[in-house]
């Protein structure tokens, strides 16, 4: 197990380096810092001085990879690549366009993001798995048919319409909860109910259908027939035998997103004005704040890799056949 974890960690390093190189190439090689400066400053104020100033302020005035002007180790370290990419590995993220420390900002925004994403994740899992089990229990009946139709219809609706519709119906017509905003502490609950509810509804269609397919596939296996031949009740067959085995494919898709919950949801947060990482990302994108976007890419892939490792570990818990060595 330990050896496995070490190997996985070792495997993560080249991937992170790859991500880093890729983003670096995207941000600094496709466009020169001059181009970026021009974009940021707008057409009117573009003078060579303004550009130079903009670059100096952000540390983009160095060479990309090799600083011939510098001495010794600084030839490597006094470069954009070192300053902007290598330092990320020690979580030195630098500052955003508005001068705030990105690391601090991320720390403070993780909470609200998690406050929405975690309940959505858990509730959704519970709701959709139950719904899917219900459909499978009533397999090939009218309930199953219309349940699937409902799922297909639900998954054909863009996520934004769920949010808009929910806000309109619950906040505007029924005035049950505030339409958007966020407060710290217990008050947060009032603001969280709607986004969480909508988040769960929005995922029902796709996920239920997926789980249903998995359950049906598992339900057709020989050992399920064996279980029925033992005289077990349909519920026992479903919960003990089918569900247990279905956990393996389900975990593949589910566990990997757990660390990503920290990243929050782009749409929900921006529609509801929640100060989380999702809305941070959106703000950074619309403000064309390249440093923040780059940091989010890095953190995102870090969390994804963590998710992959978690997935592998979770297999050990449900599947006795797998031993990580």
């Amino acid at each position, binding site marked *: 197990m330990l050896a496995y974890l070490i190997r996985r960690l070792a495997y993560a390093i080249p991937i992170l380096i790859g991500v880093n190189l890729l983003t670096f190439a995207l941000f600094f090689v*496709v466009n020169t810092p001059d181009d970026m400066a021009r974009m940021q400053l707008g057409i009117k104020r573009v003078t060579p001085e303004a550009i130079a100033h903009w670059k100096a302020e952000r540390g983009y005035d160095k060479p990309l990879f090799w600083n011939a002007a510098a001495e010794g180790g600084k030839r490597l370290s006094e470069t954009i690549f070192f300053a902007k990419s290598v330092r990320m590995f020690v979580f030195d993220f630098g500052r955003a366009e508005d001068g705030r420390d990105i690391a601090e900002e991320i720390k403070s925004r993780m909470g609200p993001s998690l406050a929405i994403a975690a309940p959505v994740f858990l509730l959704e899992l519970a709701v959709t798995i139950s719904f899917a089990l219900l459909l499978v229990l009533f397999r090939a009946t009218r309930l199953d048919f219309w349940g699937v139709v409902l799922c297909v219809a639900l998954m054909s609706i863009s996520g934004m319409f769920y949010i808009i519709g929910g806000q309109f119906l619950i906040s505007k017509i029924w005035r049950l909860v505030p339409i958007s905003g966020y407060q710290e502490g217990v008050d947060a609950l009032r603001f969280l109910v709607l986004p969480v509810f909508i988040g769960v509804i929005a995922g029902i269609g796709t996920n239920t259908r997926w789980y249903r397919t998995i359950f049906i596939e598992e339900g057709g296996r020989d050992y399920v027939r064996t279980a029925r031949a033992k005289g077990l009740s349909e519920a026992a067959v479903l919960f003990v035998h089918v569900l247990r085995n279905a956990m393996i494919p389900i975990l593949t898709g589910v566990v990997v997103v757990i660390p990503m919950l920290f990243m929050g949801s782009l749409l929900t947060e921006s529609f509801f004005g929640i100060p989380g990482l999702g809305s941070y990302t959106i703000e950074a994108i619309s403000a064309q704040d390249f440093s923040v976007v780059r940091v989010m890419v890095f953190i995102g892939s870090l969390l*994804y890799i963590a998710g992959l490792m978690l997935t592998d570990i979770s297999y050990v818990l449900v599947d006795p056949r797998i031993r990580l060595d």
Partner: protein
Amino acid sequence: MNFLPVLLWTDLLIWLLVLLLVVAAIAARRNEPLRRGWAHVGRNRGGMAAATVLAVFFVVGLSDSVHFRSRIDGANGANGAMPANYAVEVRSLLDLSLGHLRNRPEKSYSEPLALRLYNKDLVQLPDGRQTRDYPRLRYGGSHLDEQGTERGADVAATLARALAAALLVWSACAALLTLGLSRRQGERLAASWRRIWGWECAAGESGESNFAWSAVLAALGGVLLVAAILIALSANYHAFGTDKVGQDVLYLALKSVRTALIIGLLTTLVLLPLAVTLGIMAGYFRSWVDDLVQYLYTTISSIPGVLLIAAAVLMMQVVIDSHPQWFATSAERADVRLLSLCLILGMTSWTSLCRLLRGETLKLSQLEFILAAHAFGLSHRRIIVRHILPNLMHIVLISLVMDFSQLVLAEAVLSYVGIGVDPSTISFGTMINSARMELAREPMVWWSLAAAFSFMFALVLSANLLADAVRDAFDPQIAGSS
């Protein structure tokens, strides 16, 4: 010439794709396993109804993909000496046929079928005084009197006419179909008619090969009805209202169809070669090729999709913005941006298909017919082309139709986030985005959203239903599970 044809990049590619589809269809007709699969799709009622609706969307989208610039120095200026002047504005066949929608802008918001603007404005009274009131629309319901008292009756009459027209056209289609079928099968008309509706199975062994004509006709009926109503109403009204700058919302919704199709189709054109080549190579050659491909797709899929797209789009935007000299018209610029969005979406979403194909190739390579091919000393290239690729086509096909609806939905989100299409390109995303600003208004401007919602829902739902039918027909594992 009275117009200058403009070939936008996306036009070129989309027609290329259509050509490709036609060629593939002809090939599929000859290839027995594929034909069998499609015949299976053809029997699926939901799938065929969805395909009918999709076909209508395709006609709209494709007619919006023939662009030109019309001549503006008058038709009589064709004396040949002077170089002709053409409008800067690039228009499409669809624009031409929707001229009456396009060329009747109001001042600002108006509700569907409204006679007056949604906002109060200064109105010039007949006696010269000015007052703040809801002004009459310039075009919407302009054939009615000042008070608009007979609007209800007029709308009802229009609806009745539309209904009659739809019924007529539908009956004609149904009759033609019955006639055609009875000719081909050499049976009586009544028998064909009964067979269309499944009241009677075809004779003999083809009892199971009944094409779901009933579903096609039913869907056609629905589409015809909606189309007739919209056409009839939009002659004198704004059927879906107008937006902030007074553009007809129905027009916007129709124009959005092309954007959605382009994104949904062209992206796969980018994604496919990447996923197929890398996936097969990794699964077939294994060893270091496999390691490399796995590294590639793990790395790319480890970056959250939206962020990678955002990063790429931001950078692409910088490139486009810093090279304004590349584009002759704003339409071309918007088009290149659309194309690069497809490119970026394709580059970031090939990984899942690639992983799937790699796994399947690994499995196939162990099968005995591949061993037999090795035993005959076939070259790697030939084994891949003749033995592996054809046995992966069903996966490719299924994932293509499944991806389509995902991409259409993704476009809306990306445009909302600001990393989608050019703001000047009409798309579902930009429609939602601009409508969202008005959500806070009291009372609310709901019709843009409603139009975008219903068009998108119809498009995505039919794509999903067709995808299900295709998957049922081609995926031996899933088949029968739903």
